[in-house]
């Protein structure tokens, strides 16, 4: 079957690939672009570790038909650091022991970024809501919630 050409912005850079019909964005990112930061957990929308931002909105890349991002901007964990410097959320995750095995971390960070980009000083409840589509089997969530609150407004906001 003929492949379909696909062009979009990946972490600020134009990319062009050919996909098989029905390919999901997670497979396109990992196998065709080589960005391994979004993870495969379930392929069913249940775990959130494949989360990416599409035009700034949180999406599950495993449930996104790759062709639908034509002409759009896709941001993954690989794109959030600033040169050699970690993003404040990454720093806060490290400082607050918010990653144990680390498998959920890429999705948690993207969900947290989607929140803070819109709402720089969220309440605790808003953080819980923002990461509610992301499963973590290690931390019990508390260190993750604390890390997001610590990163929010440079650690000033706590509710």
């Amino acid at each position, binding site marked *: *079957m003929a492949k*379909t050409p696909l062009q979009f912005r990946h972490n600020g850079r134009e990319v062009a690939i050919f996909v*098989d*019909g*029905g*390919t*999901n964005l997670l497979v396109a990112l990992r196998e065709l672009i080589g960005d391994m930061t979004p993870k495969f957990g379930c*392929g*069913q*929308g249940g775990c*959130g570790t494949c*989360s990416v931002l599409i035009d700034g*909105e*949180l*999406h*599950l890349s*495993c*449930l*996104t*038909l790759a*062709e*639908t991002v034509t002409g759009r901007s896709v941001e993954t964990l690989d794109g959030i650091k600033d040169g050699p410097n970690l993003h404040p959320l990454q720093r806060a995750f490290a400082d607050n022991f918010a990653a144990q095995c680390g498998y959920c971390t890429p999705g948690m960070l993207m*969900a947290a970024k*989607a*929140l803070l980009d819109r709402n720089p000083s969220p309440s605790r409840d808003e953080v*819980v*809501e*923002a*990461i*509610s*589509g*992301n499963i973590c089997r290690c931390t019990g969530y508390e260190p993750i919630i604390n890390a997001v609150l610590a990163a929010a407004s440079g650690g000033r906001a706590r509710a």
Partner: protein
Amino acid sequence: MPVTVKTFTSTNEAAAALSSDRSARYLGGGTLVMRALNEGDISISTVVRASDHALTRIDTGGSRITLGAGVTYARILADRDLGFLHAPARSIGGPAVRNMGTVGGNLFAPNPYGDFTVAMLALDAVVSVQGGLGSREVPIEEFLQSRDRQAGTLVLAISFAKPGNAEAFRYRKIARIKPKGGAVITLAAYLPVNGSRIVGARVALGSMAPTPIRARAAERALEGRSLDASTIDAAAAAAVEGTSPSDSAIASAWYRREIVSVHLKRLLSGQE
């Protein structure tokens, strides 16, 4: 297995492509279709999309509200005129699912999903569908009863009369996992009051039958009465009538039958 993806600018062409091919599936937000493809569902060989902007339009201007089939929950949550629908929209998935999932797709979502459709059923919505032979309006209850046979039709929009009073609409989803989780049951009610009497009561239930259903016996107990303790008790007692819930990983059919009256009572008496 690769599938063929067909994207059309017009809904006419998309509808024709869907009705002419039994293995074609329309892609809304894709939260259920992509799941199926990821699992290797071989019954789907063609995915149909339509990019017509009408599908993503929200119209709250007139006496009726129209939601294009491709409207997402995030869009509803961002719309102040749709405040009464924020509770059902917020009850669905996590933030990513709300950015992706559409109200059109929800009409087809099997249990434990279909929460938004329960709200639409209580509002007695009309579903605009485009078949191979043209478009028509189908009352949502009829649409749901024949849902299995709607596979080849394209849903364009859902519309309903703007509630005269936002308080007349109530919604409650019972889930074990908070804030996100599939429903044990879902309840929605529309109770317009004339003087002190309820006129035109509608109660809808999710996960109490293969598709969302109206609780007719409970509606009869409410109709023409004032919403006092004895009316609420009578409606709650009648809630289970006509239901046929199933066992699932979330709850047994027995449990669903046991709790539906408790939650209808809470919904009607405005309890948290």
